[in-house]
C-alpha cells in the first residue's frame, strides 16, 4: 500500500465495533454442525477432494477455510454473463492458462437473490431450494461449485447457515428436491471466485507481462461478499493490517499495482438491487459522489477494481450522466480477474470484452502499454468473419448438439 490507512471514524467502527461484536460472541462454525448433520445421515456434504487441490487460508476469526482451485463447476452470474461478459470469460481464460480443469454448462439457474432483495417476490424456501438444486447439479457432475457472483456467494453462505440451523427448512427443501429427483447436499465451503483468484495470486502474477507500479488502483469491495456472513471472509495480517478483507487487494499488490486507500472504501456502490432499476437517481448520485469522485480526488485513481457484478455495472455505467453536473471523471472500472487477465496478455476485446464497458478504459491500457488498437481492428474483422458464417472461437470445446 502506498498510502497509510485513512484515520477517520471508520477506524473506530471497524476495530472497535465490528470485531468487538464478533469476537465477544463468535458465531458457531456451521461447518462443524454440518459434519454432525452428515454423521446423522441428514445431509450429504459436497467434499473438497485432493483433485480440487485446495489451498488453506484464514478467515476473519482466525478459522481455516479451504479454497479449491481445480476441477470447478462454474456457477455463473446472470449480471456478469448478461452485461459484463469479459468477467466469466477472464476467469475461464486464466484457468486455461493455469492448466486447470473446469465445467461450464447449461444446467444452472442463477441464485435468484437479486430479484429477491429487490422485489421480495420469493421466499426462504424457494431461495434454499434453488441453491441446493444448483449445488446438487455440481455434485452429480463431480465438479466443485465456484460462485462467480457476490450476491450468490452472500446468499449461499446465508442459506447454508440457515439449512444447518433449521430442521424444518431442511425437511421442506429435501421434500421439494426429491420431487425433481435430487437430494439435500451442502458444499463443505461456499467459495467465491475472488477467493480462488486470491489463493492463486502468485501463479497468476507470475504471468504478468507489464510493469504497473505507476498504475493507481482503488478497490471497491462488494457488500454481499464481505458484509453478509462476515466471519466467512478471508483476512490476512499483511493486507490492511488484517482489518479488511484480503481478496482483490492482495492480487493487485501481487501484480505490482499502486493500490491506494480512500475514505469511502467501506461504502456500497449504490446498486441497491431495486434502486439500479427504480431509484436511478440514488444509484447515480451515490456511485459518483461516494465512490468515483473520492477514488479520483483523494487517491488519483487510474482504475477502480471490483469483485462483483452489480458494483462493476453501477460504478461503470453511472459515470456518463455525471457530466450533466460537471463530473468528468471517466474512471475505468473492471473486475480484479479482468485486470489480471489483461496483464497476463489476454486480448482486451476477444477475451476481456472491454468493449461492453462504458467508462473510457483505453487511456488506462495506453498508460500500462497494452496495445488495444490492433485487437480492436482484429475484433472488427472477426465480427465480419462470424457474420459470413465462420464458427466462433471457444475457450473450451462446446458439447455436440
Amino acid at each position, binding site marked *: 500500500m502506498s498510502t497509510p490507512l485513512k484515520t477517520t471514524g471508520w477506524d473506530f467502527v471497524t476495530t472497535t465495533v465490528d470485531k468487538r461484536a464478533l469476537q465477544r460472541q463468535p458465531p458457531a462454525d456451521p461447518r462443524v454442525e454440518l459434519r454432525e448433520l452428515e454423521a446423522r445421515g441428514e445431509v450429504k456434504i459436497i467434499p473438497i477432494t485432493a483433485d480440487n487441490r485446495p489451498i488453506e487460508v484464514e478467515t476473519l476469526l482466525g478459522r481455516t477455510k479451504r479454497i479449491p482451485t481445480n476441477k470447478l463447476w462454474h456457477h455463473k452470474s446472470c449480471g456478469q454473463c448478461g452485461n459484463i461478459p469479459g468477467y466469466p470469460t477472464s476467469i475461464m481464460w486464466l484457468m486455461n492458462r493455469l492448466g486447470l480443469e473446469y465445467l461450464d454448462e447449461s444446467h444452472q439457474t442463477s441464485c435468484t437473490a437479486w430479484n429477491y432483495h429487490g422485489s421480495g417476490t420469493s421466499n426462504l424456501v424457494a431461495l434454499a431450494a434453488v441453491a441446493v438444486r444448483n449445488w446438487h447439479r455440481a455434485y452429480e457432475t463431480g465438479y466443485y461449485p465456484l460462485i462467480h457472483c457476490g450476491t450468490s456467494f452472500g446468499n449461499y453462505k446465508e442459506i447454508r447457515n440457515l439449512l444447518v440451523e433449521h430442521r424444518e427448512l431442511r425437511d421442506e427443501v429435501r421434500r421439494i428436491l426429491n420431487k425433481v429427483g435430487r437430494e439435500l447436499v451442502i458444499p463443505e465451503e461456499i467459495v467465491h471466485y475472488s477467493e480462488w483468484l486470491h489463493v492463486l495470486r502468485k501463479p497468476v502474477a507470475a504471468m504478468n507481462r507489464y510493469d504497473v507500479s505507476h498504475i493507481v488502483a482503488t478497490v471497491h469491495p462488494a457488500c454481499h461478499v464481505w458484509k*453478509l456472513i462476515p466471519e466467512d471472509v478471508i483476512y490476512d495480517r499483511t493486507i490492511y493490517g488484517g482489518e479488511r478483507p484480503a481478496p482483490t487487494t492482495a492480487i493487485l499488490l501481487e501484480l505490482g499495482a499502486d493500490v491506494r486507500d480512500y475514505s469511502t472504501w467501506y461504502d456500497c456502490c449504490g446498486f441497491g438491487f431495486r434502486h439500479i432499476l427504480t431509484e436511478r437517481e440514488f444509484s447515480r448520485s451515490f456511485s459518483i459522489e461516494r465512490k468515483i469522485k473520492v477514488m479520483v480526488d483523494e487517491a488519483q485513481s487510474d482504475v477502480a477494481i471490483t469483485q462483483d457484478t452489480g458494483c462493476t455495472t453501477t460504478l461503470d455505467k453511472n459515470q456518463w450522466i455525471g457530466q450533466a453536473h460537471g463530473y468528468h471523471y471517466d474512471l475505468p472500472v473492471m473486475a480484479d480477474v479482468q485486470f489480471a487477465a489483461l496483464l497476463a496478455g489476454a486480448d482486451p476485446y476477444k477475451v476481456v470484452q472491454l468493449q461492453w464497458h462504458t467508462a473510457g478504459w483505453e487511456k488506462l491500457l495506453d498508460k500500462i502499454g497494452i496495445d488495444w488498437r490492433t485487437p480492436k481492428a482484429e475484433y472488427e474483422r472477426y465480427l465480419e468473419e462470424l457474420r459470413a458464417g465462420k464458427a466462433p472461437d471457444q475457450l473450451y470445446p462446446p458439447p455436440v448438439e
Partner: protein
Amino acid sequence: MVDASETHLKLDPDAVGRQDADSLLRAIQSDIRYREVVHGCLNCGVCSGSCPSHRFFDYSPRVVVQTVLAGDAEAVKAMMDEYIWACAQCYTCAMRCPLHNSPGGLVMIMREVAVWRGMEAVHRLLKPYGRVLLKVLSIGNQLTPDMIQPDFFPDWGPKIPWSSTDLALKRKAIPVYTLQVTSSAWRVSPETSYELYTIYEETGVFRLIEQIDPNLFEVVSDMVEEVRELVEAGRDD
C-alpha cells in the same frame, strides 16, 4: 412477541389481501429468521450512521428496528408502504450493529410480508420489475443481454446503443459457448427450467404471482407449458 412454536418458513400466497396491521406485524415476528435479525436494540444509531440510504433518503434502519420492537403495528404497517423500500440491501448495518442485529435482514422480511400480503405499494413498486420477474420466473436468469436497451437506460451514455445493435453477432464473438445467446444470460437447459418450475410451484411463488400480477402470470404460464411439453416429449422418446 410471538413464541418460537409459531414461527413460519414461508407465507401463504392465498393470504394476499390480509392486511390488518396486527397480522402483518405477527407475520414479520414469526418469520423463522426474525430471531436472528433482531436481538434487542441499543438505539445507538451505528446502523444509520453507516447506511447509504440514510444519507440520501428520509430513512433510518435504527427507526425500523425501534418501531418493530416497540410493537406499534400501525406504524410498522405504514413503514411497509414506502419507507422500507429505500433500503439498498447492502448489509453494512448488519456488520456494524454491536448487538448482531441485521436491520437489512429485518427490512427483507418486511418486504416479503408486504409482497405476500399484496399491499398497495407493491403494485407500484413492482411495475418497473416486470422484465426481471418474467426472466427469473421463466428461465431463472435475472438479467439478460437483450434487456440492456438505450430506451431503458438513456442515462448510461452513448455506448449502450453499440451494445444493443447486432447483439446476436457480438454475443457469438464471446468465446464461451454458454454465453453465445441473447435472450438469456447463458444457455439454460429446458430440464433446468422444468425443475425450477417445480420449485416455484411447491414454494407458492407461482401462486403469489398469479395473485398479485395476473397478466404477468399468464405470460409466464404459457412459457412454462411450452417448456414442460418439450421436456416431457423428450422423456417419452
